[in-house]
């Protein structure tokens, strides 16, 4: 199709030529080795690097823009535009970044510290989707062309973990095109950066038709080795069945969001293979354990306030059955309300027992509900893997302990506001942890709702003692003491049963069997890592 263009691109480096050639030889029947047709459920919402902190958007932008530090498939940090980072020896509130030299933007401009200062400031702007990740930053300053200092409000030992999706733009380009700030909706004007890019990333944007097709070609001037994939055609396909059909019919090469039920069948299909791996996201139920009365219950008090009922809930959930049937084996059942990637996770927290319905029913009766009680269970139906089916299964299990749950499953746009506005008694939520640290969970889910804390704390849980500890975590520089405090907090949270965890999500990518691509824990696969051959 676009072979002329390719020849031009991969002829630039001998290595690409070699790899592409080898791949071609290996895949006589497969796709064009240099072009990768990649499909997933949704498109990037925008190409503006700081407007939306959202999965598909960041995933696509990682191919065009780059961050200071990147996240490898094992969850560790790796150098990208920053080659070194450290807390300043003189001032524990200052982060020092040493930048990569010789990096060029797609338009040929040189990458310097000036661009980093500009980009971090842009990411902190009011209209930025990344503002919250940089809320502890006081100022960003350039020391020399390749050194940047970030001054924090207090010691922030884990700040670097927040940077894995904060992309670096070219200051000159942004100023020339009047995109100094991210999209402002109220202004009613479209930002140039929404559809135009100038990054340092491994691919340049060739064409883009939102929600139809985005074409990217390898950037010849990239500082890293030219990837095996020299052209990417990215197509969102919203319907699960159509997405799988497109792979089966050979119209796409890689499908990122594979429905769990299709994994086993695809594995047995000739010419197709599946890569699976854990995602850095856990799925759990939570409930209003604080109010005196529930909104939807048929009893006058709040059953979830009673430890017996919360214990009963932990006894009815059959995580193994959910894993085997609902998730088709594609999940990691766990009682710990955090994924294993996250600092603070322990094997003990993960452990769970077999369900005991008799004991659960007895506990419910003991709590003062001999006939059980009924309550609405809110569930999204378009957000997590098989979210609605998990809730449905849960309804059945709850029923065995005489808890009559009415399932209300609806679109995410209706579900999440219920949690934000405290209009739900009992709900399903999934939580990804981009910083790979427990503090991120505590801040949003455990801390009392006030200021920037507790926005997703739908349990109304409020423990001033814990709040103080959570706030202290942010500035602790002694990582050992900090880890101990995290463990303390988790002990209390587990004891109070704030969360009823179901499992950690697993990711599955399906691809032609001559393609190798590993699952990325944040579901942000990088096509630079693709290799061809079996």
């Amino acid at each position, binding site marked *: 199709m676009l072979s002329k263009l390719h020849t031009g691109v991969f002829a630039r480096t001998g290595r690409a030529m070699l790899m592409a050639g080898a791949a071609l030889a290996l895949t006589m029947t497969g796709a064009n080795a240099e072009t990768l047709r990649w499909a997933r459920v949704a498109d990037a919402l925008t190409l503006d690097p700081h407007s939306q902190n959202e999965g598909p958007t960041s995933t696509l932008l990682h191919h065009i823009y780059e961050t200071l530090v990147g996240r490898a498939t094992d969850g560790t940090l790796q150098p990208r535009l920053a080659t070194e980072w450290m807390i300043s020896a003189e001032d524990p509130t200052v982060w020092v970044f040493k930048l990569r030299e010789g990096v060029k933007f797609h338009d040929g401009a040189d990458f310097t510290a000036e661009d980093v200062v500009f980009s971090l400031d842009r990411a902190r702007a009011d209209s930025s989707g990344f503002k919250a990740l940089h809320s502890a930053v006081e100022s960003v300053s350039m020391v020399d062309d390749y050194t940047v200092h970030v001054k924090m409000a207090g010691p922030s030992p884990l700040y670097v973990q927040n940077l894995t999706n904060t992309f670096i733009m070219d200051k000159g380009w942004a100023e020339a095109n009047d995109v100094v700030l991210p999209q402002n909706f109220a202004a009613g004007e479209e930002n140039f950066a929404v559809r135009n890019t100038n990054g340092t990333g491994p691919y340049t944007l060739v064409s883009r038709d939102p929600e139809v097709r985005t074409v990217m070609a390898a950037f010849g001037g990239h500082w890293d080795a030219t990837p095996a994939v020299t052209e990417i055609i990215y197509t969102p396909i919203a319907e*699960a*069945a159509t997405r*799988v*059909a497109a792979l*089966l019919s050979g119209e796409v090469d890689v499908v990122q969001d594979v*429905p769990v*039920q*299709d994994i*086993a*069948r695809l594995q047995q299909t000739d010419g197709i293979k599946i890569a699976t791996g854990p995602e850095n996201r856990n799925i759990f139920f939570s409930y209003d354990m604080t109010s005196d009365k529930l*909104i*939807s219950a048929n009893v006058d008090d709040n059953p979830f306030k009673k430890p017996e009922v919360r214990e009963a809930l932990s006894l009815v959930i*059959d995580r193994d*059955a*959910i894993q*085997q*049937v*609902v998730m088709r084996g594609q999940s990691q059942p766990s009682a710990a309300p955090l994924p294993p990637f996250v600092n603070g996770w322990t094997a003990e927290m993960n452990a769970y027992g077999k369900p005991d319905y008799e004991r659960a029913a007895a506990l419910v009766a003991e709590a003062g509900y001999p006939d059980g009680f009924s309550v*609405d269970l809110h569930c999204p*139906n*378009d957000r997590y893997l098989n979210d*609605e*089916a998990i809730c*449905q*299964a849960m*309804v*059945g*299990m*709850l*029923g*065995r302990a005489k808890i009559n*749950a*009415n*399932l*209300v*499953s*609806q*679109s995410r746009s*209706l579900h999440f506001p*219920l949690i934000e506005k405290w*209009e739900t008694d009992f709900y399903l939520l999934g939580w990804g942890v981009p910083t790979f640290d427990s503090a991120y969970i505590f801040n949003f889910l455990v801390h009392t709702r006030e200021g920037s804390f507790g926005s997703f704390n739908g349990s109304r849980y409020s423990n001033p003692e814990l709040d103080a500890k959570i706030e202290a975590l942010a500035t602790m520089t002694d990582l050992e003491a900090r880890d101990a405090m995290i463990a303390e907090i988790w002990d209390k949270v587990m004891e109070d049963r704030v969360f009823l965890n179901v499992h950690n999500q697993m990711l599955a990518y399906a691809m032609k069997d001559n393609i190798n691509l590993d699952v990325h824990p944040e579901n942000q696969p990088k096509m630079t890592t693709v290799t061809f051959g079996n």
Partner: protein
Amino acid sequence: MNRLARMWDSDIAWSFRHSPVAIVATVVALIIIMGAVLAPWVAPFNPFDSASLNLMDGFTPPGVPNQFTGNTYLMGTDNQGRDIFSTILYGARISLFVGFAAVVFSMVLGIGLGLLAGWRGGWVDSLLMRIADVQLSFPSILIALLIFGVARGFIPPTMREEVAIWVLIVSIGLSDWVQYARVVRGAAMVEKSKEYVQAARVIGVHPTRIVLRHILPNVMGPVLVIATIGLALAIIAEATLSFLGVGVPPTQPSLGTLIRIGQQYLFSGEWWIILFPSIALLLLALSVNLLGDWLRDALNPRLR
């Protein structure tokens, strides 16, 4: 001749006896309807009782023992371990209820407004027919989506699930009243100008009585035809809305919801989850449609 014999001898009955298609369609429709109505007694399980389900029974192929529990199901089970056969019966119950109720709703509304327009004439007629025009050309599924949206806003969250099915009925029914109104309006206008009606009006017979005695019986034929086809359409519309995420809760699936769920397993090898409900829906809608076709021809004396 007694009543029964007279019915047996009527033209409709004769035409029915001589139409194999109509007979087969009636038998099929009756089997499904009876199965649905009697589901609590006929179905081996109650799939709407979530507490009775064993998740480990999920995805059991038809007639093959489950690998964990060893249970065997005639048509297999779905992703929640529900017996497909029972779920079809219970689901058809929901689908038929929604279908019938939507048809009754639109029929009552349509006949009422049609009579009003035809009888009163003037600006009432113009207004109603203008609304009908707008409604007719505004796509029915959009109307249903919008009504569902409105209802979601007005109804307190805790009651949404209970009223969801009624909202669904109104949504589907509301987009269908125009056809009835048109037919009835036409008939009302024709009858109104006839001498006996004029005479009855002169001697002071109440209009309601005239309408009920003379106009309604005249339009029952075409109304019945529209209602039959409308029933099939309503059942399909319910399924379509379910695909768009609007409809009955998944814990109490209709046939359409069942198909929407089963559709996810088309490529994964669990063909029975979609196949059996689809066949049931196809048979139901097809037989009702065929009956409507036959009825249309049988009631049209000029085509006999």
